[in-house]
């Protein structure tokens, strides 16, 4: 039975059969033989309802599905045995790290859910070479915890404590230092990968490079990352500065100017709708900050906190009928600003452990049982238009929302990694991404309504030739529209060769 057009935005799904955006449940042929096979090899397969229920949804909370069984990853050998049996019996395997997807990419619609957080040990820290070898199920926060004991830190990681290393390397990973250090995936030097057919392979740019290129930013299609060697650096507390705007265009122009000039070590934009726009910049060293003050401060158009608050007060005093919006902004500021300035994370004016500060704030003030965060990733030139048009979509659907914008420094030598990924093909030097996150709160929205909102954002991307961070799962109907048949077929051919039974992470991309 086909599903009718979306009643909220009937144009949004033109050309895409609705059923393709929703994963079908695997019918479990061959499950019994598969179960016997893996258990005979000593793999613990958990089939009780309580365990399977733990993994029924992801951070988005809009996609639900139950696996037939769960395996907690322990060793590459165990993962290998699992995948070999899965190939033989054509059982889908969905791999999950922190489960922070929003489009159901880490939800298993039947088959096996492979929980990678069982492989969370740091294996070796090399202080001289500034590298770390770690099991890939580890959360970035746990990795940071271990590195800090030796005065070290990772380069860039998502501002979310429970993102896993393996999951992040598979999709990108954006930090507020990504405009200068690139995405998290670009810091991987080497990987141990279990291929969909169960081979355990070490790969890097110089060893099994084709596999390395496909697995990095590969959305889990070409292998399970079990270990990773990452670049690290000396730990630095940072000094954070904030500038406030009422114009998205002005804030983005300043962000891109500062990035292009390498004026700071960290930069990004965080907004309350399009009313209060914060440009944050931060510095690892006093020298860098001093240079910013001397050279760039006069070129930044944003106001300080007091001046901006005064401006807002005057603006809303003249528009009293918008008191509800003013009250929202005031209340939001009252809870958010102290959260970002908690004294235990600041010493002598410097912020320590930025990921903890941001992540706690994100979960406390943005998180919830349901989250949708459609995004657009474009070249620098197209970014302002993408954000303004995406902002218009947000305003159409929601009273309150947040935009988060950040640049991503690209590595020309990593072009092969970027193919069919969130990195837009026309971006040079630096790409830019914007997440559009409605504040859902306790309100209940239909999945159709949320899907329509995401579709309209993604339609902007199709028109602009953009890419997306979250193009898998429920959004995979856009993959051919965005990347074109030729590139998709090229990757599909490779996928079929690497994964003959098409069992690894089904319904994410292919």
């Amino acid at each position, binding site marked *: 039975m086909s599903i009718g057009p979306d009643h909220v935005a009937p144009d949004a799904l033109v050309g895409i059969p609705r059923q393709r955006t929703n994963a079908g449940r695997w019918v479990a042929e061959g499950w019994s033989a598969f179960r016997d096979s893996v258990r005979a090899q000593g793999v613990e397969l958990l089939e009780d309802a309580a365990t399977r229920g*733990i993994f029924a949804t992801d951070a988005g909370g809009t996609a639900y599905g139950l696996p037939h069984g769960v395996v907690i990853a322990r060793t590459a050998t165990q993962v290998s045995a699992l995948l070999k049996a899965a190939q033989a019996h054509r059982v889908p395997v969905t791999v999950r790290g922190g489960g922070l997807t929003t489009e159901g990419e880490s939800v298993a619609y039947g088959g096996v859910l492979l929980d990678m957080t069982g492989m969370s040990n740091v294996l070796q820290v090399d202080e001289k070479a500034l590298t770390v070898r770690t099991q890939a199920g580890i959360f970035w926060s746990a990795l940071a915890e271990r590195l800090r004991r030796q005065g070290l830190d990772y380069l860039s990681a998502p501002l979310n404590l429970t993102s896993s290393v393996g999951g992040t390397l598979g999709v990108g990973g954006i930090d507020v230092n990504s405009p200068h250090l690139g995405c998290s995936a670009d810091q991987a030097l080497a990987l141990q990968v279990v291929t969909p057919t169960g081979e355990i392979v070490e790969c890097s740019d110089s060893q099994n490079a084709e596999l390395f290129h496909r697995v990095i930013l590969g959305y889990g299609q070409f292998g399970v990352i079990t270990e990773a060697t990452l670049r690290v650096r000396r730990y630095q507390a940072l000094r954070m500065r904030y500038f406030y705007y009422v114009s998205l265009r002005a804030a983005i122009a300043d962000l891109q100017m500062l990035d292009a000039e390498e004026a700071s070590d960290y930069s990004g934009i965080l907004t309350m709708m399009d009313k209060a726009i914060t440009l944050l910049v931060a510095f690892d060293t006093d020298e860098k900050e001093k240079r910013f003050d001397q050279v760039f401060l006069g070129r930044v158009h944003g106001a300080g906190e007091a001046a901006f608050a005064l401006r807002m007060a005057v603006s809303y005093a003249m528009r009293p009928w918008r008191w509800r919006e003013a009250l929202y902004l005031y209340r939001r500021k009252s809870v958010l600003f102290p959260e970002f300035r908690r004294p*235990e994370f600041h010493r002598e004016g410097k912020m320590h452990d930025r990921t903890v500060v941001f992540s706690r704030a994100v979960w406390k003030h943005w998180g919830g049982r349901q989250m949708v965060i459609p995004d657009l990733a474009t070249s620098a030139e197209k970014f302002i238009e993408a954000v303004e048009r995406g902002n218009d979509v947000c305003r159409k659907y929601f009273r309150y929302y947040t935009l988060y914008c950040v640049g991503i420094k690209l590595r020309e030598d990593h072009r092969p990694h970027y193919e069919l990924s969130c990195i837009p093909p026309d971006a040079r030097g630096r790409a830019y991404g914007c997440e559009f996150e409605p504040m859902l709160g306790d309100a209940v929205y239909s999945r159709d309504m949320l899907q329509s909102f995401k579709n309209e954002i993604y339609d902007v991307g199709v028109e602009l030739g953009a890419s997306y961070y979250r193009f898998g799962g429920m959004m995979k109907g856009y993959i051919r529209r965005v990347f074109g048949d030729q590139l998709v077929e090229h990757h599909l051919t490779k996928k079929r060769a690497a994964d003959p039974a098409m069992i690894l992470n089904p319904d994410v991309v292919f």
Partner: protein
Amino acid sequence: MSHHDCSGCGLCLLVCPVWHGSRDVRLTPKGRARAIQHGATREDLAASVDGCTLCGACEPACPEELPLVDMVMELRSGRTFPATEVRTQGKKKLLLPGQALRAEPDRLARTLALLEGYELAPDDGMDIVTALETGAPITDERLAAFLAPLALARQIVVAEGLLLRALRRWLADASIRGIGEALLPAIGANLRAGDLYVIASQAFNCDQPRLIARYDSLRSSSGCEMNLDLQRIAMPVAGQARWILEGRSIERIVVEDLSERAAFDFAGKPVLHLAELA
């Protein structure tokens, strides 16, 4: 607030000693909440519930501010937390030293000397601690008998973290502190770089928002290290003493909770109770 309010962020995993030891999400607050949201029963979760150490590290981590320790205790006992509340009337200062400190008279005497004006409570309530831990019932009579002498005090210092948490509810108008917080003013200046100061996690984590500034300031001024993780939550010692020491260069270990001293025997470093720093 219940398991159904958990959004599944997983921040509790980062601080959960059971998760650190097992890497098994089923044994964590997130695992229990997600399972319950999808229909699991108390019986389904028995192993997970029994495995919880009640360290309370998950509570300050939880953005939903769920009462996660209470939720485990309720799953264990099948009852809500005993809701007694007793009004305090006296001006005494009492110390409930707990089993470990009471077993070492020298250290107990030193602790009492540092806590000026305090006297020993007649009853440590160790059976009540055990009942809270295991979910065994506490009769109204026993609870009343335990609380009666404590109701004569305005200030109470408690070694057992789980008891401290309970007493704050049962004696809501008394000042109830852990041994660490009570002794810090007397011993803080004697901490130094090269020390690992091991905070008693149960007492700290149930009051983390209030205590963190004080401990962080002490860490900064003394140069010592602490068993605080990146979220500024006290890592429990049970099962993870080696992890707490991993990658650190430590000369001396100072414990707030005397019962945790033995966990660091493997380290080959002097392990002191904080009262010995004075």
